[in-house]
């Protein structure tokens, strides 16, 4: 598995559950590849940012 394949799987993981083979191969790759490891973390952040964006200018605090 190369970085392009790994990042593609990490994006798909946001859309569907990965199967065991995919998960295992991805794990092997990310253990050794810091770039892809960060990419995976950033995918989670992108989703969090997007979902928070409706409330981005916080005018009423709790």
């Amino acid at each position, binding site marked *: 598995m*190369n970085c392009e394949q790994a*990042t*593609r799987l990490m994006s798909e993981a946001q*859309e569907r559950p990965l199967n065991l083979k995919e998960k295992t191969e991805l794990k092997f790759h990310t253990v050794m590849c810091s770039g892809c490891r960060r990419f995976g973390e950033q995918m989670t952040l992108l989703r969090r940012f997007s979902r928070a964006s409706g*409330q981005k*200018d916080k005018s009423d605090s709790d």
Partner: protein
Amino acid sequence: MDLAASELQTLRDKMLSFARLQLSDDALAEDVVQEALAGALKNADAFARAASLQTWVFAILKNKIADALRNRYRQPELESFDDECKECGSGDDQFNNKGHWQSHSSPQRWDAPERLIHDQHFWRVFDTCLEGLPAEQARVFMMREFIELSSDEICESLALSTSNLHVLLYRARLKLRQCLEGNWFNRGTSA
């Protein structure tokens, strides 16, 4: 509910800019915002239990935008989607010909991402990056991540295959990530 006119105006402006970004259609954006506000006021009882007015109206607004998007794509005017996608599967310049990160594009550490939710400068960069995506990528990304439609719903309303959708989302995320890193997280550290 007690709400000063100025507060309502501010809220309305935020809703409008959000809706415009999603729909790229000012008139339609005005309509959905109006409907969302009317819906929110009509259900003021439910709002009394909600955490904040803004959260509440934005939840309604998202639904209205989702409806508007579904309606728009029910008329299949965008038959170009499938064609676009043949190209979006091709190699990206962030990877070399072996499929490994180019040295300049390998993801770097993002510092303190949690603080950014309330940082207006960050959101300006975020919006600019989003607007810089190819139109069809931006559209599916927004439908998926902002409006929170399911993959199935998006495929159905755009007549896209699942694999096409995945490729479009992948391309969008790849570019958005790179843009945020270059223009926010690593700004000033590289050319």
